[in-house]
């Protein structure tokens, strides 16, 4: 059986810092990855330094950046679901969950990555994760793929404990850094990458580990 991973995230670039290394690692190990990105990050504030984008051109630019990031990671199946940035929490649950369920039925993933609902800071992140959890939760227990969640809220470990999946991605920093750099409209700020020449030791320290929480479904 083909081993297939489904990634469901709301914005282009959500994959870059926390997940790209892990995906590159899975792909090298023979997995296929489908990445469903809910929006084009149309409402992003970062437009490049100096600005090379505007509100009208940003969606097309971010789409190209996302395609380049996917190429760097090795993802060959990108699905753009066409929702609008900052509106996921207001979308009709049946519509949103239906789109995710269609993908699950088509792909039959053994593993899904998304955001941990309630612990992912941005309303789009939480609403995206909640939609995935609702949809997977409706599957019969023995058909549910594992769901590994990104989370980064303050104090989250008091509530949901320590991450139980730790991915060492030090061998996959090249695709990871290429994924981050692909999103040049978003991550050009000096404090991130642009003006810093990190030594490879610094990069390994800062970017070499990715952490996930397995979502605890009831029975």
């Amino acid at each position, binding site marked *: 059986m083909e081993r297939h991973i489904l990634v469901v995230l709301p914005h282009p670039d959500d994959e870059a810092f926390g997940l790209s290394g892990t995906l590159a690692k899975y792909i090298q190990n023979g997995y296929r990855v489908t990445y469903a990105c809910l929006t084009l990050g149309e409402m992003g504030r970062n437009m490049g330094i100096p600005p090379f984008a505007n509100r009208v051109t940003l969606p097309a630019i971010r789409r190209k950046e996302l395609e380049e990031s996917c190429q760097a990671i090795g993802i060959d199946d990108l699905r753009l679901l066409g929702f*609008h940035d*900052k*509106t996921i*929490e*207001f979308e009709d649950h049946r519509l949103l969950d239906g789109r995710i369920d269609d993908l699950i039925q088509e792909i039959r993933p053994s593993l899904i990555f998304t955001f941990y609902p309630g612990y992912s800071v941005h*309303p789009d992140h939480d609403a995206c994760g909640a939609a995935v959890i609702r949809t997977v939760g409706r599957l019969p227990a023995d058909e549910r793929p594992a769901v590994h969640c990104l989370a980064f809220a303050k104090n989250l470990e008091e509530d949901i404990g320590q991450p139980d999946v730790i991915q060492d991605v030090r061998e996959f920093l090249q695709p990871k850094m290429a994924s981050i750099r692909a999103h040049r409209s978003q991550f050009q700020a000096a404090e991130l990458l642009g003006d810093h020449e990190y030594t490879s030791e610094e990069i390994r320290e800062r970017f070499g580990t990715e952490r996930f929480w397995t979502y605890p479904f009831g029975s």
Partner: protein
Amino acid sequence: MIPIDRLPTETELRKFVGSEVYVHSEATSFVFVRNFKLRIGEAHVAGEGSYRVALRFDGQGWLRMEALTHYEVDEAGRLLLAGYDDRGRMNVALHLGKEPFPE
């Protein structure tokens, strides 16, 4: 103005669904728009403590505001939502009425 409670505020907001409404919307330091006329299709309130409000209108658009904290329905039946900081300064406002606001 009374602190927003999500459900009662959403109930008030949804009384405008299906109607043509005049909107006054502002983000104090940067922009306001007065008497923007639209037909509301959906109305939502989300958040805790500080709230996000979204209107889907005319079958093709969104109006979304965040940092809203207080609301009231005035004697003319207009729904007045606003967001204040901890020193009582207004940051954002979203007002809905069935008649134009005075220009």
